């Protein structure tokens, strides 16, 4: 028995219901627009649900069309495996945009009520009862499918968590062990510089190169070890402008790739926020590192910072090719990378650092081209 058959059996949804719903469709269709209106008004009135819809009015228009088609298909049937697969896909989209399920439930009830009103107006006697039952069973089935997609998602998340925990244990001990040989290379290069001074240009070039590579290896290790830490950020009042400026300067000093790239920053003078400065600088450095790689073929990078009633926002934009659409939703997952080089830790750590500040991070592609990442950190426990 398939999952759909099992659900239908449990709910008692049968061919009589399908017939009743098909008969309801011509009566209900003229009301779809009003239902959709009420549905999204309800969704958008909850700040948490609203936050899930990041695409603004264009996305809402698209979602409304989807909902109208969804109602049409729900009443029309056939309620077969292909129908189930399409339902589950829509459900997964809700999961992907992190629409909290309680909002989805209450909004679905609006549709149930709307349809029942139509039934009450359009049918009488036996037919009314039969159609009312059919609407209830259909909506129960729809909810069961939605719940299934949410559960599927949390199971996937749990499996990923377990996998990461195992990888985490192994990789943190490897990371620690690697610091020792790196330390030997680093100190040997340091001593070589002294022994060979004054350095011939080609010798200096290679020593620079070894040092640069040792530094990036050390950074990967630091990222990995930071990923494994779980304590929340130790927040102190921090002047943001110097932190941003110094992070950019250090980046341009340490990385040859960053040297030719114009990196502008726009921070309100005197802006102070409660953050853990080391962690925030690390997150910003990781974003800049990605942005620098993205504009390798030319283009500029901009860092903008502002503060509002929600907290501190740090936005990094580049004029590169943007994120690959296929991985846009997952760029902050560990081990996901759009770069040929790289292990996919940089952005995962950015998210980790935001979470450790009680905040979040979002990635998008800019309409004018290039990527945009915004870190949002709520103000600390006391106003700053």
């Amino acid at each position, binding site marked *: 028995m398939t999952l759909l058959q099992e659900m239908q059996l449990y709910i008692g949804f049968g061919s009589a219901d399908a017939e009743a719903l098909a008969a309801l469709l011509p009566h209900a269709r003229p009301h779809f627009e009003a239902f959709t209106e009420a549905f999204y008004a309800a969704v958008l009135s909850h700040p948490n649900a609203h936050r899930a819809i990041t695409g603004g009015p264009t996305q809402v228009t698209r979602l409304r069309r989807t909902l109208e088609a969804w109602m049409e298909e729900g009443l029309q049937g056939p309620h077969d495996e292909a129908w189930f697969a399409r339902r589950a896909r829509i459900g997964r989209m809700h999961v992907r945009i992190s629409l909290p399920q309680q909002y989805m439930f209450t909004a679905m009830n609006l549709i149930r009520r709307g349809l029942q009103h139509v039934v009450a107006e359009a049918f009488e006697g036996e037919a009314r009862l039969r159609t009312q039952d059919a609407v209830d069973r259909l909506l129960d089935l729809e909810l069961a499918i939605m719940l299934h997609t949410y559960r599927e998602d949390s199971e996937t998340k749990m499996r990923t968590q377990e996998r990461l925990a195992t990888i985490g244990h192994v990789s943190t001990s490897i990371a620690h062990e690697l*610091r*020792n040989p790196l*330390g030997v290379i680093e100190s040997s290069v340091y001593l070589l510089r002294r022994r060979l001074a004054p350095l011939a240009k080609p010798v200096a070039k290679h020593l620079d190169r070894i040092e640069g590579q040792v530094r990036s290896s050390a950074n990967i290790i630091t990222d990995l070890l930071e990923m494994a830490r779980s304590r929340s950020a130790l927040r102190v009042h921090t002047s943001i402008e110097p932190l941003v400026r110094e992070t950019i300067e250090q980046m341009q000093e340490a990385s040859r790739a960053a040297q030719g790239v114009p990196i502008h920053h726009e921070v309100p003078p005197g802006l102070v926020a409660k953050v853990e400065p080391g962690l925030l600088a690390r997150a910003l450095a990781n974003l800049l590192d990605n942005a620098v790689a993205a504009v390798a073929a030319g283009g500029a990078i901009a860092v903008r910072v502002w503060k509002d009633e929600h907290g501190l926002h740090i936005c990094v934009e580049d004029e590169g090719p943007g994120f690959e659409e296929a991985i846009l939703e997952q760029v902050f997952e560990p081990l996901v990378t759009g770069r040929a080089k790289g292990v996919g830790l940089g952005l995962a750590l950015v998210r980790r650092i935001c979470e450790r500040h009680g905040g979040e991070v979002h990635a998008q592609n800019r309409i004018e081209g290039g990527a945009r990442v915004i870190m949002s950190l709520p103000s600390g426990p006391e106003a700053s």
Partner: protein
Amino acid sequence: MRCTVLIVDDNESLAENLAELLEDEGFDTRIATNGPEALELLDGLPSPRLLLTDVHMPGMNGVELLKKASSEHGLRAIVITAYAHDDLLAEAERGGAAAVLTKPLDLDALTRLCTDVCGCSE
């Protein structure tokens, strides 16, 4: 008076590199690759002296060594660790470490620190 630094690290190459670096800066150095060996060397070590030890070593770890060295020999110590574990760092500080450094090491900072700590010891 030259200060003698006792370098303890189970990674011999790193210990030798640190020794070479510090000798450049005018320190005398000794190397041990574990805690018991370090304690043995300490007995005959002239003053002023300084212990520079890694934390994670098989057998006696660096924090245990540090506690013994500072209680029995009144030795000042700098502790180096690849693990930025907060509790371990706190323990090293409580155990009397003059400083705790995490790897990767800033070698300029390390030599400055050795000079400072040696200057105000014994």
